[in-house]
């Protein structure tokens, strides 16, 4: 069994991380999952959360807001719509992301008045976003208008 697997984290604007890892914690839409070498091929969508990669040179964390991940025999690829290194996330970034989630939730409430599905989805995204704030010690309350 291989000890490491090729891991790529890419956003539309740039490649954020690339290299061998021993395991990656992926915030999947249906719950966190840890992908290790020789994982079965999976494609999963992401929820807002923390992505942690453990490599031979130590571990690293990124905040992702959504996207999807492909796990195959060739490696693990995470395509994040927006992603920042955990250390680079400032309160301003976080407020912006939280604001967007809140806006989407409010919009969903007005657009889909009688359909709980999309509203619940947006509410979940917002809740996930708040949880991210707790995790990286940024205050979700400050983002409120």
């Amino acid at each position, binding site marked *: 069994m291989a000890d490491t697997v090729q891991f*790529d984290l*890419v*956003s*539309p*604007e*740039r*490649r954020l991380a690339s290299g061998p890892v021993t395991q990656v914690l992926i915030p*999947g*839409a*249906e719950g966190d*999952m840890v992908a290790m070498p020789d994982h*079965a*091929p*999976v*494609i*999963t*969508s992401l929820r807002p959360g923390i992505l942690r990669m453990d490599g031979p040179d130590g571990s690293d964390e990124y905040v992702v807001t959504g*996207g*999807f991940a*492909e796990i*195959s*025999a060739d490696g693990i*690829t995470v*395509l994040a*719509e*927006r992603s920042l290194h955990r250390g680079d996330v400032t309160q301003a970034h976080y407020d912006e992301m939280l604001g967007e989630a809140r806006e989407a939730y409010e919009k969903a409430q007005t657009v889909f008045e009688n359909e709980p599905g999309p509203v619940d989805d947006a509410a979940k995204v917002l809740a996930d976003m708040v949880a991210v704030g707790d995790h990286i010690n940024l205050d979700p309350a400050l983002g409120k208008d």
Partner: protein
Amino acid sequence: MPSLKDLKTRIESVKSTRKITKAMQMVAAAKLRRAQDAAEMSRPYTEKFNAVMGKLAESVGDAENAPRLLAGTGSDQTHLLVVMTAERGLCGGFNGNIAKLAKVRADELKGQGKTVKILTVGKKGRDALRRDYGDLLIDHIDMTEVKHVGYNDAKAIAEDLLARFEDGQFDVATIFFSRFENVITQVPTAQQVVPASYERADDDAKAGGSTVYDYEPDEQAILADLLPRGVATQIFSALLENGASEQGARMSAMDNATRNAGEMIDKLTIQYNRTRQAVITNELIEIISGAEAL
């Protein structure tokens, strides 16, 4: 015959024009490098994305309940042409070529009796199409304020497009942009974004034993989540290609202009010298013939 003073003024004015075009060329060269870098940075994402979409489309695409973004509305009566051009001119045939391609397509579709609507991104495209197709323009997206194209700009355009699609305003959407090949060559390109057309995994991949993926939550849900992103991704890469093409076209256009200005200065300088010599000769003749008359 222009006077010496006229010639001198003209030479000065052409010289200052040359300075401007030279400066624009150098600015375009610097911006081109940045635009190319940006386009290159986005490539891994786009490639990977399209690969995954290809796989997904293959497994779901033929199903009866495939999402409308993939399978289409079942009609192709109303076409939306999204014409993406630059906000500024002075870049050779860049804007004109894109507009021309869109015009050809619009005429072709109209000839087939389809309804054509045009959405312009970038001022120059709107200006080029307004006269002949003014009644077809449904909206314009202004990019004047955008200095560096980001994914969010593309996403905003995509969301606008998708809202119109949901609204039933069109059946098929095609984006028009210029693909960057190199500084001299930019290819105006039309690409259909709605319904999405992804290349199915090619035969090589199939022969190599295509991997069977598990999907979380399930294929349908992922596809529904990814298709709108796919539109945004395609628009984003088109915007980046366009950005690089624009700077490339401007660079070569300004290079030509600088060279032309140089040639013109040479020609004018020769004319200036000849005229000066003629004036001197003339004066000498006058003096000599004056002296002889005495």
